[in-house]
């Protein structure tokens, strides 16, 4: 063996954050070995060794050195393969700051609120949580309008960091829509984000690596069924 550019990605086919890494690798035309992890049985030795603190996917292993945390991985890919493919982060410091700010908003505020609202058994908590999620979507709509300045994506003419960050959740959101009939992006309240979402999901790079919405919906249905049967047994 002994390739000088050995790139491996540990992930799961349904994970939005793993999708981020896949999109970035594809944008830069990087050849890599993909390893599907089964997080429901036991985590692989390689995963535990590569991400001992969090034991989560995605993990990118480049020349035997592991990088974890999806947004770190995307930045790492952008910086390492900076002469191939489009640049994922904008070049101007202020635009970069905006991309980082809003991606932090998605990862540390918006998506955790969404996940909590989805999981909770309390109707009150769900209602309160979904309100926060909706507020967040409106803020993201405003941010998109300000940042994209009339272009199709946050990054401009082509997808970039913030598109990848938020866009990676779209498959999950659409899958939930299919499964539950709950629509998060409303054409009336968030018209620009709706247009952006369609463009993102039909982008060639994204289409090539994203999981099928139907398959994810089926998977979510199975997860829910398992959770219900486990709850009724306890």
């Amino acid at each position: 063996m002994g390739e000088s550019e050995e790139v491996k990605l540990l992930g799961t086919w349904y994970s939005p954050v793993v999708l981020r890494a896949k999109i970035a690798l594809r944008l830069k035309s990087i050849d890599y070995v993909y390893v599907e992890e089964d997080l429901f049985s036991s985590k692989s030795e390689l995963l535990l060794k590569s991400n001992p603190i969090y034991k989560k996917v995605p993990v990118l292993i480049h020349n035997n050195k592991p990088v974890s945390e999806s947004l770190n991985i995307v930045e790492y890919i952008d910086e390492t393969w900076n002469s191939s493919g489009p640049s994922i982060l904008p070049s101007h410091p202020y635009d970069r700051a905006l991309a980082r700010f809003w991606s932090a908003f998605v990862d540390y505020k918006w998506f955790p609120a969404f996940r909590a609202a989805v999981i909770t058994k309390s109707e009150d908590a769900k209602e309160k949580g979904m309100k926060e999620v909706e507020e967040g979507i409106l803020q993201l709509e405003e941010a998109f309008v300000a940042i994209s300045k009339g272009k199709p994506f946050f990054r401009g003419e082509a997808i970039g960091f913030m598109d990848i960050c938020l866009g990676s959740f779209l498959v999950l959101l659409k899958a939930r829509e299919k499964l539950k009939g709950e629509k998060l992006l409303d054409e009336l309240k968030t018209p620009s984000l709706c247009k952006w979402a369609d463009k993102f999901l039909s982008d060639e790079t994204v289409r090539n690596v994203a999981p099928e919405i139907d398959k994810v919906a089926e998977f979510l249905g199975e997860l829910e069924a398992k959770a219900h049967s486990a709850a009724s047994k306890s």
Partner: protein
Amino acid sequence: MAESRSEEVKLLGMWVSPFSRRIEIALTLKGVPYEFSEQDITNKSSLLLQLNPVHKMIPVLVHNGKPISESLVILEYIDDTWPNNPILPQDPYDRAMARFWAKFVDQQIYVAAMKMVGKIGEERDAAVEATRDLLKLLEKELVGKDFLGGTSLGFVDIVATLVAFWLMRTDEIIGVKIVPVEMFPEIHRWVKNLLQNDVVKNCIPPEDEHLKYIKARMDSLKIKSV
């Protein structure tokens, strides 16, 4: 009078906030002059609300009229804008590691440390143990290094001043020596190294005033120290 100069830098912050102080360290390391505006977060100014409508928190850096919030985002912005005396390493892998550890301090250590406050007895002890478990990872990172950034002060050190000069100043209010030197010799060695750096030494809250403030705050919140 000239209204807008080309390099107007303003920082909305708080003298006791670790998140605000880390920005001051970064700006000072780079020799960037700035105007500091002390904020009262119990009575938020309209300026703060206007500049950070999403989170309504400090610190906020305003550069040429444009606001940036979230301390880690601000630190990267500062490094991007003023490339002298770089804070982040040059190598992409080292940068990824630096970002990882910075997030670890803010998302893991800080969150665990906050859970120690206001607890007593077994609950307190469990929270302290959980915090120490995380600190042990930082301890491991320091073996053979003067700083978390390696031979010199870097991104993670600046972020981790939260541990050195905030977490490690709360022994009295938590009621236990959270970071004993026998358990954390590397961290203690690292704190000494930090204090050798003039910028850090001058940019952190003076210890006496800081301890007084912490105690007064706990008293006002009626949180007893045990």
